[in-house]
């Protein structure tokens, strides 16, 4: 109770609250600007939080995150241009509803769905993170190493047909972290006699360069569109209809809960974020509807599903971060960066060792959702007006801001050079179709992977242990299947052997480490996996024979 009070006092401190309000506002603004992603907003907030105490810094970043997740719906509903990739599906029904003369209701449904999604995922975060951390206590260095490999392969597999490019990007991210002095023995690596390289790249400058600088360059590439405003909407005279919206949400509570659960689950998976969750939830809402004829024409369920799911994603992404120290998506990876900046290394003991900070994160997550509701209703016009600013003006101001922010990290001009070099690299990678998410995850997790590899080999030099220990085998198996997944997707609906036997093979394979783990629950799960796998195989083998 004392710890909870300490955390509460940390968050309701007037300075922290002020930063949270500014953070939610900045997030809403960033979210409402098409092309300006939430990850970019978070990464640009990072340097600001450097001088703050950890709880205050994280609360500010969580506020930006919550604001950003909700900001996308405003421009999506009012202009038809989604502010962020995580609100793409919101425009499918939000914009038609607004055009049909109900913009206030569309916004109301969007705002309250976001709020509910955020609150549901915050509750699940509080419930699940400590449970997952307890499982994480079983992990040894072999398991952590394989967990990082799994996170990288899953993220790379999301690149779909560009899987190889995704894997190269992830490996390149791991390599970037090896430049400079080795953490374990202090030997210089790949410094080529340069002091700048010997100190290594500051990973936050790398993240801002890779993500923000390269994005700005992409936005500015076309001289004509760079001089245009993002939207030509002159005025916004809309009043959010809260009461009607809440009524609709109550009538569609199953859509709210299902979508929030989809968002939460998608968030837990490394690499999969709001951009996937909102489409998945929309699709599920449409499939589950008895009458789906109004979808795409302004159906309220078409707004509820994407908004509840994209706000729930972050609760999911924060769960593995707080429980295992492995971020669920890019924004959580940046949060991890913020924690590392304050010398706090999240892992299975994080919640136990830093309970006040863990509670502060929970409380900030709840509180930010309430601040978001208040701000979205009050200053809606201002946020939409931001979309009238010309792209080149916005990009220049952001770039100047990023430059000062990066310098402030260590008072070092070298960090700005890092920003510049990695901005160029990120831009080139975008042009050649390399996904940036695996590289960012590689940069963030590179040290953790190397440290655990060294620890594992120090305990026992047998490399086979990476495939013989239950948890590391478990992660190795799902890492391999995640790499095969894009090929499986390509062969879907073709009736190929891979299509028929992919899922039963996954289940059969994971039953082995589950058996090795022992215990009643895991052995039962292993038997269940074998039973389900056999049933699917029997069904599909029958089909193959008939065919």
């Amino acid at each position, binding site marked *: 109770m004392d710890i909870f009070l300490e955390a509460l006092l940390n968050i309701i401190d007037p300075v922290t609250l002020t930063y949270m309000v500014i953070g939610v506002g900045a997030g809403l603004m960033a979210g409402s600007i098409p092309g300006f992603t939430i990850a970019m907003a978070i990464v640009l907030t990072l340097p600001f939080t450097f001088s703050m105490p950890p709880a205050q810094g994280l609360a500010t970043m969580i506020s930006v995150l919550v604001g950003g997740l909700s900001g996308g719906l405003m421009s999506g509903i009012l202009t038809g241009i989604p502010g962020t990739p995580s609100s793409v599906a919101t425009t499918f029904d939000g914009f038609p509803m607004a055009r049909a003369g109900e913009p206030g209701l569309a916004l109301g449904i969007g705002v309250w769905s976001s709020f509910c999604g955020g609150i549901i995922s915050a509750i699940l975060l509080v419930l699940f993170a400590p449970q997952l951390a307890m499982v994480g206590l079983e992990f040894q260095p072999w398991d952590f190493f394989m967990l990082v490999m799994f996170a990288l392969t899953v993220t790379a597999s999301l690149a779909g047909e560009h899987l*190889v490019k995704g894997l190269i990007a992830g490996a390149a991210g791991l*390599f970037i972290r090896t430049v400079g002095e080795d953490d374990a023995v202090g030997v210089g690596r790949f410094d080529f006699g340069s002091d700048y390289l010997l100190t290594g790249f500051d990973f936050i400058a790398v993240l801002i360069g890779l993500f923000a600088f390269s994005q700005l360059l992409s936005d500015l590439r076309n001289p004509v569109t760079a001089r245009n405003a993002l939207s030509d909407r002159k005025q916004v005279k809309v009043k959010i209809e809260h009461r009607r919206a809440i009524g609709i949400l109550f009538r569609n509570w199953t859509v709210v809960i299902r979508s929030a659960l989809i968002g939460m689950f998608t968030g837990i998976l490394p690499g999969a974020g709001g951009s996937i969750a909102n489409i998945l939830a929309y699709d599920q809402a449409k499939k589950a509807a008895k009458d789906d004829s109004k979808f795409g024409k302004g159906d309220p369920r078409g707004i509820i599903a994407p908004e509840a799911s994209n706000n729930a994603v972050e609760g999911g992404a924060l769960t593995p971060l707080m429980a295992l120290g492995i971020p669920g998506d890019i924004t959580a990876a940046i949060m991890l960066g913020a924690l590392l900046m304050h010398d706090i290394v999240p892992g299975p003991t994080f919640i136990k060792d830093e309970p006040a900070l863990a509670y502060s994160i929970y409380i900030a997550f709840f509180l930010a959702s309430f601040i978001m509701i208040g701000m979205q209703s009050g200053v809606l016009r201002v946020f939409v007006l931001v979309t009238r600013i010309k792209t080149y003006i916005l990009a220049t101001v952001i770039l100047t801001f990023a430059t000062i922010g990066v310098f402030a990290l260590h008072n070092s001009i070298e960090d700005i050079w890092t920003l510049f070099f990695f901005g160029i690299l990120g831009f080139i990678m975008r042009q050649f179709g390399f996904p940036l998410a695996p590289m960012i995850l590689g940069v963030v997790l590179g040290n953790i992977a190397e440290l655990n590899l060294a620890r594992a080999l120090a305990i026992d030099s047998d490399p086979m242990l990476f495939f013989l220990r239950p948890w590391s085998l478990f992660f190795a198996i799902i890492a391999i299947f995640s790499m095969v997944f894009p090929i499986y997707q390509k062969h879907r609906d073709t009736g190929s052997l891979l299509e028929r036997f992919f899922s039963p093979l996954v289940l059969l394979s994971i039953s082995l480490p589950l058996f090795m783990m022992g215990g009643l629950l895991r052995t039962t799960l292993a038997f269940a996996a074998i039973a389900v796998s056999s049933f699917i195989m029997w069904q599909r083998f029958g089909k193959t024979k008939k065919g």
Partner: protein
Amino acid sequence: MSFNRDSLVALCLILASGGLMLASFEIREPDYGVLSPAAWPRIIIIIIGGLSVIYLIQSFSTPQKDISPVPKKTLKEFVLYWQNVIAVFSIFALYLLVLPYLGMLVGNILFSFVLLTVLGGWNAILMHLVIALGASGGMWLLFTHVLEVFLPRGSLTGF
């Protein structure tokens, strides 16, 4: 089978992997510690190299999709296509070179003003000046006075 843009990138990556592998032999091997400081980077380089070979093979077998229709006819067309990107790169590099002499405040005002004018044209020069002064000055005040972050002073300007 044809040599395309992806093949070129894959070849560059293979060459880079080879170069980095050679460079990894320059890493000093201490007498202590279980894992050699060169071991982990070498594992990564081997993975990158192997994946690059797969990427090269794929590039030959997969028909090239033209994702970015970059004009390739003349240098002038190329420069015109990328003019804004080249401008940002050049102005930013110049800004970094003069930063120690001009300092963060003057450097940022000049950087944002020049960039705004190059990207947005000379017609709105006054607006660009106001934005440059407001944004850079505002951020400088915020960082130095509110967040108490020391920002570099210029050896020529003194602030």
